[in-house]
């Protein structure tokens, strides 16, 4: 489903590439952890798949489509298939929690009836139904993060890309969220998570892709956070 051939990303004005010569393939329905130290290139890889950034070298395919050559319209289609959880949340400050989650459906032109059903469902899954009418700046860090998750899952995407979805969550909430992702994954949705939460990675025994300094240093089925582990 997602295929990278010798992909490179060099940010302008930087000496070293943020990603160098990455080749990998992720099948429909897989559950993948991206791990690596701060600055390793995890977010960059996710941004490339989401086409928030363009690679500076190599080829990328999403469902056999060349991601780098998408036209304006196709790009919208591409992003609509993906549920993205951003590392910095990216909630709309002027909208309530409900409106933020509803927006993901409104963009797709879904009818109001469906929106009124699905949004509370999604908020319930992340445990924030009682905060539906709050504005994002009235929420705690973890609550904002979970709104971002609800917005990503509400539209039943083909793929969920999550960048550090548990960075602001406590142990119990983190575990619940991972259980939620696992349930969604069992329904056939591909899930790719960049994370530092080694305990979770070690416990869940999923595919692990490790990056360091922009290089892929490990790709294990049923792996742990560290090789030695």
């Amino acid at each position, binding site marked *: 489903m997602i295929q990278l051939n010798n992909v490179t990303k060099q940010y302008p004005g930087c000496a070293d590439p943020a990603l160098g010569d990455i080749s990998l393939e992720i099948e429909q329905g897989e559950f993948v952890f991206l791990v690596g130290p701060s600055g390793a290139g995890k977010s960059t890889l996710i941004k490339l798949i*989401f086409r*928030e950034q363009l690679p500076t070298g190599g080829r990328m395919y999403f469902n056999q489509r060349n991601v780098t050559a998408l036209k*304006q*319209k196709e*790009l*919208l*289609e*591409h*992003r*609509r298939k993906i549920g*993205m959880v*951003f590392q910095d949340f*990216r*909630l*709309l*400050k*002027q909208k309530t929690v409900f409106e933020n989650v509803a*927006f*993901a459906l*409104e*963009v*797709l*032109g*879904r*009818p*109001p009836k469906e929106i009124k059903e699905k949004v509370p469902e999604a908020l319930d899954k992340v445990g924030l139904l009682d905060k539906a009418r709050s504005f994002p700046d009235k929420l705690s860090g973890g609550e904002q993060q979970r709104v971002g998750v609800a*917005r990503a899952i509400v539209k039943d995407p083909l793929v969920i890309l999550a960048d550090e979805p548990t960075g602001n969550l406590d142990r119990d909430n983190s575990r619940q969220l991972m259980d939620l992702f696992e349930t969604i994954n069992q329904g056939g949705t591909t899930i790719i998570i960049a994370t530092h939460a080694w305990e979770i990675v070690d416990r869940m025994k999923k595919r692990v892709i490790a990056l360091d300094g922009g290089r892929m240093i490990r790709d294990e089925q049923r792996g742990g956070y560290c090789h030695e582990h």
Partner: protein
Amino acid sequence: MNINSFRYCMRQSVVSLRRNLWLAVVTAGIIAISLSILGGFLLLAVNADQMIRNIESNVEIGVFLEDGASIEDTRQKLDRHPGIHNYTFVSKEEGLRDFSRSLGDRVLLVGMEGENNPLPDLFRVRANEAEEVPSIAAEISAYPGVELVDYGEELVGRLLNITGWINTLFLVISILLALGAILLIITTIRLSVLARQDEVGIMKYLGASNWFIRFPFLLEGMTMGWTGTLAAAAALAAVYYRLASSLQQEALTFFIQPVTDTTRLLPIFVGLLLLGTLMGGFGSFISVRKFLRV
């Protein structure tokens, strides 16, 4: 764009206007002020134009006849001339009465009546167009029996000159004002987009189409422009109406004759309304465009 999206956009503009009410009101206010001034100028220009026309059309050609020339012959020729609007005949006797009246009716011009009257017979001729006065005067001076033709060459030239100056002045100021207003709307909306740049960015990441993002901004800008213009037009109309009616009651009436002909005033107001709405919409459009490149 399907019907759900469209309804969402409409709702969105309303919500956004309400949440940024202060900014919307100020923007509308600025549009109102600049359009009031612009509209005021247009009204002034229409009136000045009419005033100058009034003065111009009052420029008379004085046709002095030789002693004993045939009044009827000249009258017939003047009747046939196509460029002449109207004329009046002033006999030497009337001329003398006018003159003595101008001295206060107090000094009797005894001994100047009848045969002793030193004044000539006179036609006061008005042309249709001020520009044609010089050529008509030349033609008439060639008529037999005409001793002298006088039309104040200087005054006509001067008036034409002033008209030119005033028109240029109005044009320059109007262009300056329109420029200012457009610059302003673009800036206001660009800043309001800038303030929501994060929001627009997030929308794009969620896969919102350009129109889905643009449309609420356009509606918003057009609403602001339209509100501002409506306020401006209402204020202008009220002030102009009061001014015009008070001017018409004043002794100055013949001096400053306000234009009240709706066929000449309506285009100005309709034009302002269109301009305001377009400025709002177009300003938004230009501002929003910049932020829609992915």
